[in-house]
């Protein structure tokens, strides 16, 4: 079989935006890749795919799925065909995310200090105070440079007309950036000349920018502050990422038991004695970070670390209490936040969202449940979600019961079809739904977004759920320079 046949057999759903095809012809940005593929035989493509699998296996690029009873490490499925974003599209995305993050960061500062946005009636007090992630411990807490969100992963999707929508803001400990970096490394191995020929922008700066930002947060003005990545340990789903980031930045990877707080300073236990820590990039959730202040049963945290943080003796990244800003019910208010704090119109659109804590909206959702996706406001990773179009009557009834126990903890959105992108699967080229998670880094100098991101793919035909925990895979994501 010739590779040209692959393309002839690629059928795009007419109600879906396809990243590669428009009206039976290949979009400009994909031409380089398509021409290259056409020069390869099917055998060669299969070999590339095998090579990619082998590389992921040998490099241990894994993640863990929790729902199957115990932690099971899996290879993150990778599709060899890149997802390509044009320079114009990227400029739009970049501006939109920067605007959004500016507003979200101001929101966090506001709700933990003056609360102007509540006084002015933009966001109801109930919304904030009923959010389990609104941590009263952070009230009037001095945060270095007023930055709460140092690292954000913003999820974008594309509707049938190609317009971008924000699906979720991840402002706590967003993961996946190591896959963005690994996917690019694999592409370099698979198609060495393709990247420069297509003017693809590099993503390799990510660890350097992150490291530079972490250094700039050091409370001690010394040339080589001690920076650590704090991981919950090997059973965490993103442990691979923790090790990768620590390695790429050249900093220590630690767990809670490696640290101790004395006299309101954080120290790392080393073979040469205690060593003061200046900046902690923590991948431990708020609740488990400090057993003295939060969950007393936590074995993952460090007692007294919040007191060291409050004293300004250590910087913690991301700040604590960010969950109030990426709560899925608060999400509804982000466009208003942008207008309120920045006096600007939102560049990127929100997906219309129904709050189930609101009686009328809940009635409307219950009446149209088969057209809705329903999510818990403070869960991530696709856990606890109901996709109305595939749910059975019984599943919907059970879910309704759950909602009625605590409606505030649920939101609903109309099902958005997501754009499709070609995937090479079992010797065929097939369209699969994708989203996009770019990673933004905020430091004292401003916000930077590495040109790229993680494109997640719903590998099952017709599926709209891209989460790796729910059987999703990923693609290398190219942002073109011109």
């Amino acid at each position, binding site marked *: 079989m010739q590779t040209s046949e692959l393309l002839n057999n690629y059928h795009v759903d007419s109600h879906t935006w396809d990243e590669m095809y428009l009206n039976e012809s290949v979009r400009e940005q994909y031409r380089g890749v398509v021409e290259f593929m056409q020069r390869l035989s099917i055998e060669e493509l299969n070999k590339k795919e095998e090579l990619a699998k082998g590389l992921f296996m040998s490099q241990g690029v894994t993640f863990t799925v929790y729902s199957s009873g115990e932690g099971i490490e899996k290879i993150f499925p990778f599709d060899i065909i890149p997802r390509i974003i044009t320079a114009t599209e990227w400029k739009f995305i970049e501006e939109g995310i920067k605007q959004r993050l500016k507003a979200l960061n101001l929101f966090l500062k506001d709700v933990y200090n003056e609360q102007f946005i509540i006084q002015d009636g933009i966001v109801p007090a109930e919304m904030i105070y009923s959010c389990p992630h609104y941590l009263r411990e952070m009230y009037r807490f001095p945060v270095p440079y007023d930055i709460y969100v140092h690292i954000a992963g913003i999820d974008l999707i594309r509707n049938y007309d190609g317009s971008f929508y924000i699906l979720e803001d991840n402002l706590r400990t967003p993961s996946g950036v190591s896959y963005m970096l690994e996917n690019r490394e694999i592409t370099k191995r698979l198609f060495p000349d393709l990247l420069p020929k297509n003017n693809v922008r590099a993503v390799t700066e990510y660890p350097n920018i992150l490291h530079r930002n972490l250094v700039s947060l050091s409370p001690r003005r010394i040339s080589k502050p001690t920076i650590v990545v704090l991981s919950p340990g090997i059973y965490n789903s993103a442990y691979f990422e923790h090790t990768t980031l620590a390695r790429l930045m050249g900093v220590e990877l630690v767990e809670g038991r490696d640290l101790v707080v*004395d006299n309101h300073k954080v120290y790392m236990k080393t073979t040469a004695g205690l060593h003061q820590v200046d900046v902690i990039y923590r991948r431990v959730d708020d609740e488990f970070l400090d*057993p*003295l202040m939060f969950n007393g049963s936590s074995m993952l945290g460090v007692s007294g670390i919040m007191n060291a943080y409050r004293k300004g003796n250590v910087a913690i990244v991301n700040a604590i209490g960010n969950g109030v800003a990426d709560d899925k019910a608060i999400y509804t208010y982000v466009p208003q936040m942008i207008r309120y704090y920045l006096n600007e119109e939102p560049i990127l659109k929100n997906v219309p969202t129904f709050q189930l804590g609101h009686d009328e909206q809940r009635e409307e959702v219950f009446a149209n449940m088969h057209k809705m996706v329903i999510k818990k406001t403070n869960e991530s990773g696709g856990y606890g979600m109901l996709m109305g179009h595939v749910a059975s009557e019984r599943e919907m009834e059970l879910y309704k019961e759950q909602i009625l126990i605590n409606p505030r903890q649920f939101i609903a959105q109309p099902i958005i079809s997501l754009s499709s992108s070609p995937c090479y699967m079992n010797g065929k080229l097939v369209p699969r739904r994708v989203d996009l998670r770019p990673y933004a880094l905020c430091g004292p100098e401003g916000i930077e977004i590495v040109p790229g991101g993680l494109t997640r793919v719903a590998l099952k035909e017709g599926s709209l759920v891209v989460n790796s925990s729910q059987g999703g895979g990923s693609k290398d994501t190219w942002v073109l320079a011109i």
Partner: protein
Amino acid sequence: MPKFKIHHVTRYNYETPVRDSANQILLFPIQDDFQQVLKQDLHITGEPMVDIYKDFYGNEVGSFMNAEPHLELVIDSKLEVITRGNHEPADDQPAEIQWAELHKIRSQFPYIDFLKQEQFSSLGEVTRIIGEMDLRSLTPYQTGKKLNDYIFTHFQYIKGITSVETTLEEVWNLKAGVCQDFAHLLLVMLRKIEIPARYVSGYVCPNKSGMRGEGATHAWVEAYIPFYGWLGFDPTNNCNVNGMHVRLAVGRSFSNCSPVKGTYKGTSSHTLEVGVSVSYEDGRTSEEPSAVLAAQPKNANGEQENSYRRYMEMIQQQQ
């Protein structure tokens, strides 16, 4: 304006040396129109640096650490405090206007936080009992008094049968407990009928009159009375708070107000003793704390092997 000298000692003894201890204390009385601290001497084993900040509820919180191996931790606080009683609420507005006011402020800061209901299995029964009392015909102030009396009458004051880990459900079924349990139940009942209520931790200083809660830290409740403000109800003693209570901290529940809590690494085997003595202007002194340092009740199930249990035990119960 009564003046009290309070001596509060907390002593932890460990069987073998422990290290990496981090602690938090809420031992600094609230200062406002009704309470003034003249003097406070605080001594802690090893004289660590105590950092003090104001928390969300306005309490002064101290924190200190000790990473070195140690066998003992003593927190010794000597206080001189003046209190001033408040006049009773005039309570002259019609009940329905007062209830309407409470309904209006229910989702406003700070009241919203003091209405959040803790869920437990018998909450339905509590709701039924409250319903039968026909409280809506009373004013919120009268309601507070009535519920205060209900808890005092229906629950026995018995030391040692509950601990800091005892749940509301257990207390409700036991129909007994100490001041901490009484205060939690009153919080539940007041919030159930939409009266904002907060937990208060502190000392009771009754001089000769004799009150429950002497010799240890005490706990009670403050309810928000419309057109008046926060008013203290002490269900353990069935009284309004009026100049004989010294407030250390307020919060949504005990967990925001624990006078002393901490964590450490090392043996699970430790003892905790707490003593509080008060001297009065007339020269009378309740017993010296050294004489009445009372061992704190251990958690019922005996197992204290993991750090969570250790943490729970490090928190002293209020009586």
